[in-house]
């Protein structure tokens, strides 16, 4: 099957298509998270090595942390496409992703903090990974702040795109933050991922939750993109025909 991608890069074509996809993704998000949480809560052992039941936060914490980084990468991807091809839609996508990315970042911080209270005895400590995750949140916020501080949409899009590109350095830093040049100095509380050793049940539940989060992300991002399109394209004929509202 041959799909004409350029056709869908026009907001006028993209708008109705994603309109149809939203309920679909929303449905998956709900079903999968219910399933994933059920699985995680009732099909996994109560006690994991020295940890108590609380470890089950992992089913939110880890997928959320992954999402925070993935969404950032995707956002930068759209921004770069925008900078290169100057397509309006890609900027809109990037702008729509930021709030969701920030939300997941916050979620991973939040859940991490609670887990930390039970596991390390403190809500917050200056573990490099936690700190760099916090900085990622600030980068997201900076992105949104910059975008909303500029009135001219085109300038706002491009400026925010450049910022996001620069902020990309945060990802490797988060990723490698467990390995620092001198382990004695910034010994991290986080250990390297032990996914190889943990029970497959836990792994599966985490994967399901990740897919659920993806579905949720698609749904909200599409909703937000539709709003942005409505707002930015209000002068265009296709939209005026569609909504019957004259701007």
């Amino acid at each position: 099957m041959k799909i004409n991608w350029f056709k869908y890069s026009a907001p006028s074509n993209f708008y109705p298509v994603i309109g149809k996809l939203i309920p679909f993704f929303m449905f998956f998000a709900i079903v999968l998270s219910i399933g994933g949480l059920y699985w995680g809560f009732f099909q996994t052992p109560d006690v994991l090595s020295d940890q108590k039941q609380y470890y089950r936060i992992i089913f939110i914490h880890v997928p959320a942390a992954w999402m925070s980084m993935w969404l950032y990468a995707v956002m930068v991807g759209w921004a770069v496409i925008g900078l290169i091809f100057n397509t309006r839609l890609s900027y809109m996508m990037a702008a729509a992703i930021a709030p969701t990315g920030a939300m997941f970042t916050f979620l991973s911080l939040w859940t991490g903090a609670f887990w930390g209270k039970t596991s390390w005895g403190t809500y917050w400590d200056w573990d490099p990974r936690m700190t760099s995750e916090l900085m990622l949140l600030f980068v997201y916020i900076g992105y949104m702040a910059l975008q909303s501080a500029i009135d001219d949409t085109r300038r706002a899009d491009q400026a925010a795109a450049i910022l996001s590109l620069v902020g990309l350095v945060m990802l490797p830093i988060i990723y490698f933050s467990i390995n620092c040049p001198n382990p004695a100095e910034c010994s991290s509380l986080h250990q390297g991922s032990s996914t190889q050793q943990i029970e497959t049940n836990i792994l599966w539940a985490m994967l399901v939750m990740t897919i659920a989060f993806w579905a949720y992300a698609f749904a909200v991002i599409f909703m937000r993109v539709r709003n942005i399109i409505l707002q930015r394209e209000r002068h265009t004929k296709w939209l005026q025909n569609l909504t019957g509202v004259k701007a």
Partner: protein
Amino acid sequence: MFTVFKTILGRDLTLAMRRKTDILTTFFFFVIVISIFPLGVGFDKAMLQKMAPGIAWIAALLASMIALERLFASDYEDGTLEQMLLSHQPLIIIVLAKVFAHWLLTGLPLVLIAPLAGLQYHLSGDEVGIMMLTLLLGTPILSLLGAIGAALTLGLRGGGVLISVLILPLYVPILIYGAGAVSTSMEAGSNVQAYLLLLGAFLILALFFTPWATAAALRIASE
């Protein structure tokens, strides 16, 4: 091309010299922040010693940042930036010259004055040496990164504070490794080299990539 670099550098330095206070102020800002800290946190010697690298670095970071706001803003307001954008000289060169001037005016004085901080916080000679070295490697990165923020927020109201929000998170890794190096050097048998290499690598990366981003941001801002 080198003439352009020299001219712009000369221009920015002359501008700073015309107001002699300009150079002195960054300097004093640094000194004051450093002197104020013990007032806020107490005079415990061991604690001060431990805090010294962090505070010196944070003061450097804030001093550099505060001066950043004017890096392009004044050129933007009086229309000279427009003229630079329209000159057919490579914008990257112009950006590099301006950033270099900024560093000479804000970064270098901090490096030179670091021993004073060392004195106030009871650091040993070696530690002061490491501190100067890390500042020497690190402050240009601050200027280079900060230039992006300055260019992005050009002409926005409250740009100054916005720069901080955009740039501080990016400064964090520099801060960690910069201050980390000095802290590490305080421990016996420690290996500072890894930190310095990392900072050096960051500097080279920044030198290559940030001018592009800044130039692009400037073009966007002028629209």
